[in-house]
């Protein structure tokens, strides 16, 4: 029993170590090619602008602010996921990692967390801009707003990373990813948008915390499940 315990602990430590290295590598790639990140950022900005143009009154805009931010982040996430896997597929680096002594869940955790980080940063830059544009003064705490951005980003990144690993190996990936991803992230989008709106607008019944808990629960479900499925997906050609 003790032996098994040590074995599990050493496996988890190795998994954590490898995940950190995958994460560092991904962030380094992002850091060395800032134009990709800026592209995603301006894509999100443009979307927010379009939403603003399409809404007819300031009052409607104000109430839609939370939802608009998350629509912008969701669409931006499909761009950034696509790009992050394009870098992997360009010279077969993803296959290289599979053939390297790296546990597939570690590849998943590293990449998914890198994607979540990028999304979180986009959210951090985008939100003040959106608030100014929609003329909203947040009523709730900024810390809670940040928590929604963080857990919303991680919740989107987990299934997004798994599905991009699938679609980047298929033809016509740019159409397939939204097709598979959007139905899956309905609850995440809803919790994030609803919660963010409650932080921005007067939250008389203090419901925002419940939505934050919901987002964390989605994370707890999606991260391990996607990590388990990632191995077979990246080794798909080998079966």
């Amino acid at each position, binding site marked *: 029993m003790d032996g098994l315990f040590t074995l599990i602990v050493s496996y988890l430590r190795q998994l954590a170590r490898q995940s950190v290295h995958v994460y560092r*590598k991904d962030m380094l790639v992002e850091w*060395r090619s800032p134009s990709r990140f800026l592209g995603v950022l301006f894509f999100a900005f443009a979307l927010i602008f379009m939403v603003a143009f399409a809404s007819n009154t300031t009052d409607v805009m104000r109430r839609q602010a939370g939802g608009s931010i998350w629509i912008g982040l969701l669409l931006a996430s499909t761009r950034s996921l696509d790009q992050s896997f394009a870098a992997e597929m*360009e010279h077969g680096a993803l*296959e290289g990692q599979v053939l390297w*002594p790296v546990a597939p869940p570690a590849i998943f955790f590293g990449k998914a967390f890198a994607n979540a980080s990028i999304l979180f940063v986009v959210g951090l830059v985008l939100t003040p801009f959106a608030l100014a544009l929609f003329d909203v003064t947040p009523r709730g705490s900024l810390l809670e707003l940040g928590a929604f951005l963080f857990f919303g980003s991680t919740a989107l990144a987990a299934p997004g990373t798994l599905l991009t690993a699938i679609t980047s190996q298929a033809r016509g990936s740019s159409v397939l990813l939204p097709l598979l991803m959007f139905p899956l992230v309905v609850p995440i989008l809803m919790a994030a948008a609803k919660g963010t709106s409650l932080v921005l607008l007067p939250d008389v019944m203090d419901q925002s915390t419940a939505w934050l808990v919901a987002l964390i629960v989605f994370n707890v479900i999606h991260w391990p499940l996607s990590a388990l499925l990632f191995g077979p997906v990246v080794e798909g050609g*080998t*079966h």
Partner: protein
Amino acid sequence: MADSPPGLVIDDLARRYGRRWAVARISFQVAPGVACQVTGPNGSGKSTLLRCIATALRPHHGAARLDGKDIWAWRRTMRRDIAFLSHDSRLYEDLSAKDNLQSWARLGGYSANVDALIERVGLDPKRDDPVRMFSAGMRRRLALSIALMKQPKLLLLDEPFAALDPQGRALVIDVIREICATNAVVLMATHHPEEAAAACDQHVRLESGRQVVA
């Protein structure tokens, strides 16, 4: 199953794509410390054979064994000691040569001397340039240095001479001899049998997926 001799044993290996058998009925052995070259026209199944041995593809029939162990069944541990230089360079365009090597070393937990490796493949002056600026031959050299990092027991080279200048080809021959000296197995697919003969003692020829028995 009869117990396998040490080194690489290919036992009636076959792999298909869709309805087509890319390779079938391949059987040969390579003893430790020996380099073997695989030749054959384009599309004869050289790459498929190497990819099967490298655990990038599961054989649909038969097996490849290294020191008596089925490579596919033991792939999780075997991957630590099998190095594979494929057509894909496994490089990240935006990272420098050094960053690329360092990332791969950290990922696999290999304590490699990255600077020495870069020097070994002759990319010393370019170590901090992004791979985007590299020529095909330089990428090939860098990919080779990634494979060398593993200090492999089995080195698989898929057309290592491609895009390389004469010095580069001499480097590959040098590397093969060096790896063989560590009692490892080297298997390379190539279109240059004369050049490869300088380092290879064994020869397997494929034609449309079948082994040509000499």
